[in-house]
């Protein structure tokens, strides 16, 4: 297994685990609805960040591109949470 393969497999496994965790939060949980919703939205944007950095390979990209994607995903997460509470 190559050096580049290992971290990507770890990230994929993490993404699968988070997806199952989010699904279980949405299906049946002991949390309050709003707490579960915020957790699910946060986990969704965490997954998006992993896809951008490790799958799209932005971790090796110029800082400006990395920062632009972080700003887009960060502001999007804030907007989505704000509209959830609208």
């Amino acid at each position, binding site marked *: 297994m*190559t050096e*580049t*393969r290992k971290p*990507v*497999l770890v990230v*994929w496994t993490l*993404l*699968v685990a988070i*997806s*199952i965790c*989010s*699904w279980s*939060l*949405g*299906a049946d949980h002991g949390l309050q*609805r709003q707490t*579960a*919703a915020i957790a*699910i*939205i946060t*986990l*969704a*944007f965490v*997954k*998006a960040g992993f*896809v*951008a950095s*490790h*799958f*799209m*390979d*932005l971790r*090796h*990209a*110029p800082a400006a*591109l990395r920062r*632009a*994607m972080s700003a*887009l*995903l960060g502001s*999007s997460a804030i*907007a*989505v949470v704000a*509209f*959830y509470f*609208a």
Partner: protein
Amino acid sequence: MTVDESIARDTRTDHTPGEPGMWVIIFGDIFIFVGLFCMFLWYRSQDPPGFDAAQQMLSPGVGLVETLVLLTSSLAVVRAVASARTGNARASRQAITIAMALGAVFVVAKTLEWWSKVDAGFTPHTNTFFMLYFVLTGLHLGHVFVGLFFLSLVRNLTGKAVAGQHDFGYLEGAGIFWHMVDLIWLLLFPLIYLVH
């Protein structure tokens, strides 16, 4: 396919993946989809009980399977790019084929999911929730088709005798587009299927 020296020499630092113009599309698409998600949540805020009741008619388990299929497809695309970078055309082509096959599985799963909803009497005309459900998942499915088209184009490129920097850029660009399709689904699935 042998590999161009400029690709093999790639230092992997400060490297802009794909064609720079592709990033305009990526940022624009994510921005538009997030705007649509905000619109969905705004409509939801107008009728939370109605949206929650309609959401109960969806199949989160199917959505989870679709998520895992797209994630695995993205992993295959990462392998395709990594293999092309080291000059292993055969492995790259195989990985793209696997990614496309999984993309096709997603299309079939989504079609069956839609079919089951329509069969149960839920159409875009049923209520606002189902109108937004079909529009958002439909727009995403359109991106899946575009992504599959891009992957089919670069799959042919991997068969070329010598791959240059431009060919590799196209492969990376198609890969980034496919990852964006994955990224948007990772946001869309929880918002529509899971958030109450």
